[in-house]
């Protein structure tokens, strides 16, 4: 990496020398530099429910860093609302598609119920052979013995193709899915778009495109893909168009970065913990548990945010009505009171499934089984093909305190 903003040692020094009340974990640079860990370590020890008043970017917010506190707040949707905003950053409110991830009951429940069957395990089983075939094709096309970027050639490509498969999306246009997903969450600082108008323009194109697909599928025999299921499903076929589109975008966004960065995270973890790679080769039946451990260790969404609807005490701290409350999943998943040697990647960790990366409660990730299936197939087929997966340079990480992921992982295969 070029000049790192902080090394881990500097970060440790900094985290422990500053006054506790100045601590501000919602800093994209710290995530980009992989230097966030000591800040959360100190918070977990000294201020598990911490109020930050020093963020110019986001204003005052509470940080929850312990597993049990996060879970308790996540479960308590009566007090801690998802309505309108689910990250520490407040959205620009003028062009928001209705998505149930940012709604409270009863609206949330009604909408989620409509879409949930399409990612139900029975439907997924039907899609598994197609997904496996596509995974194999991608892996078979990778260069052997030369350096390439795993993020582009494997993580992004696999995730895009799997999304395209789930939607039976026109194959030649599949790059659009990745683009729309990136655009949906982009802002002007991200460099992806020039202006808010451009973002809205592109999303409207997305809406038009999906409407066409809907119209085409509704006139055909019911198929296995998500759009066809929505178009023919008894409870979904009369869905309001905006609702349909909001929900599709949620599926695209929800299923994209998260799975992508888990695919990258797994490769990094197995390189940082080579003994685990040997263990995996000896016993590939550990793969399903390893998938949970990869998701715990990576935690592709570092946090979710709630807004307090009333005054409420969490672990001794008085939270006030209207306060922003950030649940740092990334920290909860490294909580030693829940996970022994929590920073270590252990593919046979007995309680890996209990990770908090999917959230808990009413908003618990709806695509969790899709994500697990994708990762399981990918690792089964990777192991079948390559005797070596060697990371040959430093990872380049995403500059964000929400999406915890990678831009570059230089790799050589054998």
């Amino acid at each position: 990496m070029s000049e790192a903003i902080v090394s881990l040692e500097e970060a440790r020094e900094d985290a422990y020398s500053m006054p506790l009340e100045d601590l501000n974990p919602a800093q994209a640079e710290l995530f980009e530099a992989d230097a966030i860990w000591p800040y959360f370590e100190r918070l977990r020890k000294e201020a598990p429910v911490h109020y930050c008043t020093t963020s110019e970017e986001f204003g005052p917010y509470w940080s929850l860093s312990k597993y049990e506190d996060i879970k308790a707040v996540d479960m308590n949707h009566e007090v801690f609302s998802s309505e309108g905003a689910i990250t520490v950053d407040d959205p620009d409110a003028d062009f928001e598609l209705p998505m149930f991830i940012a709604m409270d009951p009863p609206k949330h429940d009604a909408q989620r119920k409509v879409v949930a069957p399409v990612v139900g395990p029975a439907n997924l089983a039907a899609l598994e052979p197609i997904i496996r075939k596509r995974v194999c094709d991608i892996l078979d096309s990778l260069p052997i013995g030369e350096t390439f970027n795993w993020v582009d050639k494997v993580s992004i490509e696999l995730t895009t193709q799997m999304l395209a498969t789930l939607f039976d999306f026109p194959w030649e246009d599949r790059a659009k899915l990745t683009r729309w997903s990136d655009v949906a969450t982009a802002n002007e600082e991200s460099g992806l778009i020039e202006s808010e108008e451009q973002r809205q323009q592109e999303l409207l194109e997305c809406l038009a495109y999906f409407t066409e697909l809907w119209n085409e599928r509704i006139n055909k025999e019911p198929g296995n893909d998500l759009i066809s299921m929505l178009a023919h499903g008894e409870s979904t076929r009369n869905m309001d168009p905006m609702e349909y589109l909001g929900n599709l975008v949620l599926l695209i966004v929800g299923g994209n970065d998260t799975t992508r960065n888990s695919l990258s995270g797994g490769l990094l973890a197995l390189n940082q913990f080579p003994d685990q790679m040997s263990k995996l080769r000896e016993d590939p039946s550990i793969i399903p548990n390893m998938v949970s451990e990869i998701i715990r260790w990576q935690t592709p969404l570092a946090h979710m945010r709630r807004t307090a609807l009333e005054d409420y005490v969490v672990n001794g701290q008085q939270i006030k009505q209207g306060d922003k409350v950030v649940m740092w999943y990334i920290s909860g998943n490294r909580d030693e009171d829940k996970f022994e040697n929590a920073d270590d990647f252990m593919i046979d960790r007995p309680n890996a499934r209990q990770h908090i990366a999917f959230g808990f409660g009413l908003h618990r990730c709806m695509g969790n089984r899709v994500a697990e299936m994708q990762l399981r197939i990918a690792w089964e087929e990777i192991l079948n093909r390559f005797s070596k997966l060697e990371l040959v340079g430093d990872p380049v990480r995403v500059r964000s305190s929400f999406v915890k992921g990678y831009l570059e992982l230089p790799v050589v295969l054998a």
Partner: protein
Amino acid sequence: MAKITFITHDGEKHSVDADNGISVMNAAIDNLVPGIDADCGGECSCATCHVVVEDKWMAVVGPPGDREESMLDLNPEREANSRLSCQIPVTDDIDGIVVNVPEFQM
């Protein structure tokens, strides 16, 4: 103390003895009954301990509570006798109970 029989989706029966005070979910996990994930560890917030209670035992265990109902309600595969097994305490009253474990937890 109660004897609990879990029937997995392939028809296989797993009978276990459980002490009062734990939950039916705990009884399954402690005895390695397949098909129950229990990701949240028994706090009614993941719905991956879903079971379908045999008809005649429904009156004994009763309907789900409010929080449990809202979690179950999100599962497209729920049935009339669905319960989250972490919310069924083991007591002498349920001795002999039979529950079905679905093929998939969501």
